[in-house]
């Protein structure tokens, strides 16, 4: 499958990333190279094969993986905000949305 600059820009939009005009051609070519490589999965016959999303869902692992839903002490607000770029009045402050 061949990918266009427009599709790259659409993916960038979805991923909240930007590519400058100068970067775009080089990136599109690299992206195409990787897609060409992963295309080889089309050669595999997967008819009737169940997907594996996660190995711990298989029979070798215990399905009783959920703990009791009990309220516990969690991180204090001050610590939770400790790494925030712009904390204010016990909240995360962001630029105006509307």
């Amino acid at each position, binding site marked *: 499958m061949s990918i266009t600059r427009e599709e790259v820009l659409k993916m960038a939009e979805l991923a909240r990333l930007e590519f400058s005009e100068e970067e775009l051609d080089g990136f599109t070519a690299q992206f195409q190279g990787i897609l060409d490589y992963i295309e080889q999965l089309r050669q595999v016959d997967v008819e009737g094969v169940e997907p594996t*999303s996660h190995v711990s869902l298989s029979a070798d692992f215990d399905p009783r993986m959920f703990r009791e839903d009990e309220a516990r002490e969690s991180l204090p607000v001050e610590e939770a905000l400790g790494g925030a770029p712009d904390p204010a009045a016990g909240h995360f402050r962001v630029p105006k949305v509307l």
Partner: protein
Amino acid sequence: MSLRRIEEADPALGAFLTCDPGRVLERAERVDRDVKERPLPLAGVPVAVKDNICTRGLRTTCGSRMLEQYVPPYSATAIERLEAAGAVVVGKVNCDEFAMGSSTENSALQVTRNPYDLDRVPGGSSGGSAVAVAAGMAALALGSETGGSVRQPASFCNVVGLKPTYGRISRYGLVAFASSLDCIAPLGNSPRDIALLLGRIAGRDPLDSTSAPAPVPDYVAELDRPPGRLRLGVPKEYFGQGLDPEVKAAVEAGIRNAGKLGCDVVEVSLPHTRFAIADYYIIAPAEASSNLARYDGVKYGFRAEAPEDLMDMYRRTRTLGFGPEVRRRIMIGTYALSSGYYDAYYGRAMKVRTLIRRDYERAFEKVDALLGPVSPTAAFRIGEKASDPLSMYLSDIYTVTANLAGIPAVSVPCGFTAGGLPIGMQILGNLFQELPLLRLAQAYIREFPVAPPPLRV
């Protein structure tokens, strides 16, 4: 000891991103006091920790500008457990940004060099962890694996690295890359050292629902029992095109030696191996694109200056905060999961993952463990593959399958190239079979030790 060696060797090697000698000494003194009151199995053992594993109050960068100043308010369960056993975290070590890479060159913060040749990479993504152990700056290290990120640097740096069964060690506090693949993984100078560490940090953790409830054996006590007459399989697909002749010769000699331990060696086939890299480079980026959505400039880490509005803040924060490889993988993952392409890419990749698992299931019906190379080449030159992401990806061909299947595998030193670069051999086992793997690795290293050339620092 460890601190003195870091001071001496690390300026040339660049393994450590954060090392606070005052904090280390304070902690060591505390352990000295505590050990008089109760036995501590890892009392005073210096451990280097990959910088994608959270350490309370100690900067954890993931090798990224995005988290360059991030100080976690909590520690990973593995850290809590190793500190409870008396170990001392000597510092945080370099890695590819968010563990995405095979050379540590994708770190946004510094270059790390191979102690056997300073012009070469240490491997990755846990390059700093392997260098810290190889150069004697730490006795043990924690790294992490998503697709070979401990075994490959272990093999490049002449140390032992264990990728445990998925879920064997809690992932709580390991910064998420691809959650169905990520594992915390130990590195050390011997299987015995790794057994000592693994026994302390393995086991169920209520803070990670994917941590396995399977009982944790006493790895150290069981280690010296003879491995017994094992059936060892050699996957023919691991010896094909692309395998460097020197690596091939060293691993073949290693396999012959393993046979001399009283094991039967037979050829087996893992027919889907050739699709593993393509499969991995759909699944891992897909999960990464979702996991890394959290870096939006709101809750922690970097935020771009003077955003015009919320969307502008997201875009510029992520564009400036992430390096090229991380952006590349987020883009691949976004594409593989996007509407119209999901079935063709991610959906199909999950099915191929089942076929890769089945290859191993069939092999383990016939054999107890598998032997093969870790990496197709020894350590490559810094910059050699930096501009060609696909050639970098292909260097993980023999390792990513264990991550996709969830099985354990250990990398052990098995020789050197004529140019003096380490070569590793890996031993792969069935789910939760870490003990027989470590036992075989220990017997192998005892009987067939490799004399290394001198380090360059």
